[in-house]
């Protein structure tokens, strides 16, 4: 029997990092557009993603992960490939 662990939800991770309600975020959410998601909030978002996915995110990648869409795709890639 295999145990199934629920994949982390990027919306949960971002909401926790920004200390906001999950339902205030949408796939359209983005840095500088949403409440609390400024440069300081963004470092918190990146740190939270690194902790949940156990990855190290470089500067270049950090700058690309500025939208909820990019973050969701990043989660999908890492969960599928197990990178």
């Amino acid at each position: 029997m295999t145990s199934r662990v629920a994949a982390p939800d990027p919306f949960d991770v971002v909401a926790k990092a920004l200390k906001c309600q999950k339902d205030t975020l949408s796939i359209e959410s983005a840095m500088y557009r949403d409440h609390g998601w400024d440069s300081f909030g963004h470092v918190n978002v990146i740190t939270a993603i690194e902790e949940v996915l156990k990855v190290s995110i470089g500067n270049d990648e950090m700058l690309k992960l500025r939208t909820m869409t990019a973050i969701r795709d990043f989660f999908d890639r890492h969960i599928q490939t197990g990178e």
Partner: protein
Amino acid sequence: MAEVDSVRVHAVILTRDRPEVLERSVDTAVMKMTPCDVLTVLDDSSLGVVEENAAVLATVAHKSPAMVTHLIPARLYEEIADVTVESAPAWQSRTAPRDIAPLRNLALLLSTAVRARTTVLIDDDICGFDLEMTHKHLKQLTRGSQGVIVGVEIGGQSEMDTLTRLRDALRRVKLRQVTDETPLDELFSITVGQDGVGDVDYGVVSAGYMAFNIHPTQVFAFPPGYNEDWLWCLMHNISGRVRVVRSEQLVQHAPPRVRRSTYNDVLFEIAGDLVWDCLTEYLSGDKRPPIAALCALACHTPSREVLPTARVGELLEVVRKSTLTARLHSYLNACGLRAVEAVMRSGELATNERMILTEWCKDAIAKHKSFSGLPANETVQRVIAKMTVEGRK
């Protein structure tokens, strides 16, 4: 008014007491300039440095195909005040020594007096830019009467506020991206690569290097305080009259030294960040005119999590949980951590933070009202055009 239609690119370099980087910036600018272009150096330096800069600019002017002009803001402020109704115009006053908004507004007035197809604002510590590429880019994006602001990706030393820079440095330490051999100034550097996504309607860009083409009647004054450039973009963007685009062009932020943030620096930045957060939260989807939006914002109560004490407390908690070597701790202290701790200890934030937004809104409205008639004021335009010619090297 100056002969406007013949000017292709008007590059305005803002400098203050950094002759070592100004020369680099001016050399980079003239490399891609033509006889149809104008280079203006707005020099806010102390007297000795102004003389040093004048000598550099005289040399550059000899080899430059473009007209090179050296202007002293204090003289411009005085001349403009002399021909306007206010004897001490509100838009000319700084909220703090680091408040660059009056200088940027002077650059805006220059852009309306020397009307070029592309105006580029450049901070003296920015290098690796290409004015030709920037001009072509802006031209491609210009559509009818809609104004355009184009920014770039800025690598090199981080331009962010002290709290963000420290927070990111601590993240790198935690990920063991920093060793005892790492040159400490690299802790605050940003490596930016081409992400291949093309232009992005990003809403905000840095005025460290920014090109624009906005009709004088649509120009909004740079708001006071920290984050003046992002707030300026936001003010233009909310009404939908001006498009704000971040292009893929890369430039480098290379100041002579890494910023050692002081107590006042931290307070100045924290106030600007709070205003930014409230504005993005409050104005999300707002289409009312900027002044009406600011009037309404003055009564807004900021959410608890964006209040400065929460942010500072969060950072200090990360510091407490981090394992820092003595060398690293001492470096972070020098770069602003000590100042952040002092701000928190002083209690000054807790006392004032709920007033920051209201006071800022009142100040921003007063300064915009003081400034708004000038871009279309022919007497002011003539004064600036005359001084531009007089400042020619």
